[in-house]
């Protein structure tokens, strides 16, 4: 179990990236959802031992992460939001190199491991090719492969699906779903569907604070009967915004699909709709923005 308590991080220059964040993450897939700039990556980096917070406490099982980062690293798999590759190094060589860094000293043992992982993430036929030539999806699959080396019990994946096409994204999520339930997997993302598809538990972070936390189903249940939908013309939007609590708008075939939040039928031609996770997310964000 990953326990984060009162974590605050202020960057030099005064930007408060995290503000008294507390979070408990149980085994299994945990989604951390938030918009760009919410502090997700800072939180991920601190948990991944790459950054020391201004104050606060992080514990994983019985490891005090901030005091003993090296202990956590032995059981950590980390896929950063953004990573490059060395030129002129193949996928296999790089994975092998990472395996050494993760403590696999014996070459034979390593080869078996690396080959297994390459097959696992579907890069087997590309193993002799330079990483620099990989497409975005292939690169992310390589990234998860290196994170899985050594059977970590904490895996952190930071915005893994950003920039992937739908097919690659699906394939990547499939990979993640195969990771066993015995480990803690923190998936940070700004894409609601990632969390909806995969995570039994989640939290929403905005402005450096955790603003909602819970199981997606439970969060969605809280919106039962409170979400209403209507298709309007663009010019009507301004009027609607003044009269209703608009959660989200989406263009569809040239017109605007509006979701509003209301405990009772707001009239105006709105129809009821079952709330999805997206509605949870946007209603939380707009409440946060209003507050």
């Amino acid at each position, binding site marked *: 179990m990953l326990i984060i308590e009162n974590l605050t991080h202020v960057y*030099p220059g005064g930007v408060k990236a995290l503000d008294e964040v507390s979070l408990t993450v149980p085994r299994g897939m945990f989604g951390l959802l938030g918009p760009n700039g919410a502090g997700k990556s800072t939180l991920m*980096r601190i948990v*991944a*031992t*790459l*950054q*020391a917070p201004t104050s606060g406490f992080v514990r994983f099982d019985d490891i005090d992460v901030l005091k003993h980062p*090296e202990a956590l*690293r*032995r*059981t*950590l798999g*980390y*896929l*950063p939001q*953004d*990573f*490059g*590759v*060395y*030129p*002129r190094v193949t996928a296999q060589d790089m994975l092998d*190199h*990472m395996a*050494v*860094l*993760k*403590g*696999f*000293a*014996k070459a034979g*043992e390593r080869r*078996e*491991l690396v080959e*297994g*992982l390459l*097959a*696992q993430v*579907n890069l*087997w*036929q*590309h193993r002799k*090719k330079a990483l620099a*030539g*990989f*497409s975005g*999806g*292939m690169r992310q699959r390589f*990234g998860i492969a*290196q994170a*899985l*080396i*050594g*059977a970590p019990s904490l895996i952190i994946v930071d915005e893994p699906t950003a920039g992937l096409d739908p*097919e*690659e994204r699906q*394939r990547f999520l499939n990979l993640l779903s*195969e*990771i*066993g339930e015995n480990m803690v997997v923190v998936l940070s993302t700004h894409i609601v569907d990632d969390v909806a598809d995969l995570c039994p538990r989640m939290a929403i972070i905005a402005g450096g604070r955790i603003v909602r936390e819970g199981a997606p189903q439970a969060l969605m249940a809280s919106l039962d009967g409170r979400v209403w939908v209507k298709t309007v013309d663009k010019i009507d939007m301004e009027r609607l915004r003044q009269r209703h609590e608009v959660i989200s708008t989406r263009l569809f075939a040239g017109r605007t699909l509006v979701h509003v939040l209301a405990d009772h039928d707001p009239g105006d031609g709105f129809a009821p709709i079952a709330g999805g996770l997206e509605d949870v997310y946007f209603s939380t964000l707009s409440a946060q923005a209003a507050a």
Partner: protein
Amino acid sequence: MLLQVAGFEFRYQLRQPLFWILSAILFAVAMLITGAGSLSIGSASGVHRNSPDLVNQLHLIFSIFFMFVGTAFVAGSVLKDDETGFGPILRTTRLTKFDYLYGRFAGAFAVVCVCLLGVTAASLLGGMAFWLDPDLKGPFLPGAYAYGYLVMALPNVFFTAAAFFTLSTVTRSMGWTFIGVIAFLVLYVITSIAVSRPDLAPIVARWEPFGSGAYEFATRYWTVSERNSLNPPVAGVLLFNRLFVLLLGAGFLVLAYPLSRLQAAGVKADAARRSTWPASAEEPFRPKPALHPAAPPAPPLRDAAWAQMVERTRFDMAHVFKSVAFWAILALGMANAVAILWTITSDDRYSGAVWPVTRILIPALEGGFAIFPMIIAGYFAGDLVWRDRDRRMHEIIDATPAPDWTFVLPKIAAVTLVLWATLLVSVAAAVGIQSSKGYTDFEPAKFLIWYLVPHAVDFAALAILAVFFQVLSPNKFVGWGVLLVWFVGVLTLPRVGWEHGLLFYASPFQSRMPLSDMNGLGAFWIGPWWFRLYDAGLGLLLTALCYALWRRGAESRYAPRFARLPARLRGPAGVMAGLGLVTALGAGAFILVNTNVWNTYRTKTSNEAWQADYERALLRYETVPQPSVVAVKLAVSIHPHQRLLETKGVYELENRTGQPLREVHVRFDRDVVVCALSIQGAWARTAADPRFNYRIFTFDSPMLPGEKRTLSFTTQAAQHGFRNRDNMTSVVDNGTFVNSEEIAPVIGMSRDMLLRDHAARWRQGLKYDLHPPPLNPNPAARQNSYVGHVGWTTADITVTTDADQTPIAPGYKVSDITQNGRRTAHFVTEAPILQFFSVQSARYLVKTERYKGVDLSVYYDPHHPYNVERMETALKASLDYYRANFSPYQFRQARVVEFPDYARFAQSFAGTFPWSEGLGFIADYRDPEKIDMVTYIAAHEFAHQWWAHQIVGADQQGATSLSETLAQYSALQVMRNLYGPDKIRKFLKFELDSYLRARGGEVLEEQPLYKVESDQGYIHYRKGSLVMYRLADEIGEDKVNAALRSLLAQYAFKGAPYPTSLDLVHALRAQAPADKQQLITDLFEMRTLYDVKTTAAASKRRPDGRYDVTLTVSAAKVYADGKGKVLKTPMAEDLWIGLFDAKPGSGKFGPKNVIALEKRPIHSGVQTISFIAPRPPTWAGADPYNELIDRNSDDNLLAVK
């Protein structure tokens, strides 16, 4: 459109940090070079720091640097579009290719021009710096800066910018463009070296693309006053060259248009990528194994740490070895090493070749290769330390459980191993040079112990430092900057008095060891290795700090890293740091005991100060009348392996002054330890400063004229431990060589030990120059000889040394006994000798030949048998000529005695010529065209047995014309007899060029020959040769020799009054006919320069089958003043006019090629000379053998049409 593009580019580049950083660095370096009075660039000393010459040299040098700077800007101006991915957007606009290419170039080149202005500004400010000696600053000449910028630098910068701009548009890669730059530089350096021969200078001047050849050529004989005030006119060869360079640049720019491949770049690159990588969607999904079985849990870390270390090192090494930069730098270093090694072994002084023995190759490698390790260490430390961040891999890497030191140590190891690779490559270059020159005595042990092992340690220390700076710096550019600052500090701090080796961790200069084949490393390795141990300790400490401050994860702020420093130093890192600190402190303490307790810590500055104090305290005693030493009895005991030499001696002093003497002044060399000293009937006054080893004795009763007294002394010359600089090189394990002043007292004050260098004197507050006393025929002014004021004496010297060594001292050996492991030889002189002599001891092979009653011997080291025969032959030829033409030889022996390469000279003592192993012993004469310097040196030193050891000049101006000039003349005649007069031209040409070049560097005043001062070697050697050779040609060799005989008859072996150069001039005048008296005036008493030029030469066949040859010759003659200003004077002299069918001075030229050689009258101005020749000449001209001191001797001869 083009102008807008250029304007945008200009403004854009000006905003980039690259521009500011580069400008700042270039400004700083240029400022440092100009403003540091002690650093010199090309120009001779005496040239003002703000003179046109220095400004021009600076601009020429920086225009070579600007290859890199210019390329960074102009290539960046087009390549950035592809790097940033902005290219495709740009290419879909209406911008035309022409506007794009040339607009970008124009904008970027304008930035380069601005950057170059920084150099000009720095040279302006640096040259006026307030801390400079006012004598080093001339009047402010604004034109010089404009000239330097516009004429010298700008065309070069335009050419390279254009060329590499074009290359960048072709290669579309910054990396390959820079490789092009490096390749060009290598090619340029190699070609420059290959064509650096005087006869190719006019060609190089035209076509050399940086204009330094042209500038050099235009100013080659300029004097200091010309260099300080003039720019060469932009005409002739210089104009040709500048236009050529500009056109070359323009040509490249034009080529850029058709060759540029920039237009299609974006599309091509994308297409290539697509075709290589199939869309991932097409990959079949394969059944996968479950994840966990394939990923066993990580084993305990301790097992893995070593593997991680090895793997990281391998990975980092591979990164370096796969990079183009490494190979480019290595190739450059290799080319540089080969070029330097080739040069030093092919073109020693007087264009002599030497055998490429290991001993001379190693220092050349250290010198020529030295900057490359610095570049490699700096570059790759930055590259490796920052690689994970630069590649954005650091978050993944840093989150692995690998401990920090598996990141730190491999970086250091990789940089170190790369440096070692360069070391091995340089050895390969050296061995290659040896093989290619047919030298097969490979000495792997010497390479290992003298070079590889010491520098392997030094380079490891350097690698640690370079990595440490990177760990400490916020980015790699700062890290590089810090390293550069450190390197500049290492170079400059010693010049301002901070010399202690303990201040300079990993300095490439501190730990050099003097090398000798005779003495090996001797004891000179001890100090450097203690410094290395000190470096190793500091290196451990720095490594631990690298670990403790290592940047891991996103944290790069200093405060948190320093805050956790103590915690991180608990454990093994702390132990390592502690161990390092203890080692460094221990070694440092021991070093300090050696350098500052057992020995006196001295610096260049403190030595100068000491000399200045010496002068202030003691120069006033210079004229105090002193008794003469008339007999010397010494017992010298040499302990080579203890570096100890003890001397017990007795001088017999005689008062020859004709007046009673109250005082005797006794001085010793600064380092001589005086154990006992007494003078019969005199007591030492204590007033003299003990720092100066100078004692004044007062007689109880005055020493009367003609009275004799004895002086007894015991001294030691020794060194305990090692010094920071100037370790004693005189007493060594094998090859001890001391002269009498280093072991025994000298009576009376002289100027020998005083500071002479003009700038140093000014620094020390001695704001006047030290000239010898003026020329004065009055006998009262001729009481002292110029050789340390010493006179003639007899000597009885016993030398004891280890049994396996041969002791040598002046005089005939009367006994030679070996007992108890010690060998004692007793030497007694039969003829008077100067009281200035040498004692030597080493393990020698001896070759002795008895020739006409004289034993001619060469004592040489077994490593150097090459030229022993040649030396013997030279001694014989010299003996024959000198005995026949001058006077009998005063000794029954002549001995050449080799000494270690701790100094490079040959010297003449009584019947004995100590001769450095670095000079002539390894000369390579397989090519018979090379000038035979060995014979020349032998003949010169032997001639000193007459010119110094029979007559010695009074301590006045002109004294050395009686010794050095006459020895040059004598040696020339020996050479002429051996090789024939037609071969002498090459030699005279060398002497002429040396003289003309050196007079350009005269700081104070060029004296005429008869007033030459003892440190004006270019006059008494170089000009002296030309003067005497011409005189012998004009009045006859026999007349000159008759004059010299008369001089010997009058002064040989006589004490005061000693002869002066006036005696020489008088003797020559007495022999010369009336019409040559003016010539003697011109040669000896004036600074006469000629300019003879053949402007046309044509031959036409006559009806009788012979040829009419017509030459047009222009002539001019000037008198120069001491500062180089000239005054025209009418000329009417008979000069040699020659017709040849081969070029005089060329390899195959010989007597058979001379068709006609006649004296013809030549006057100022233009004249036509006609010959009727039996066959058609190919070459013709006036003064074909360069006997005149001709300011341009290359235009004397002309090919005949």
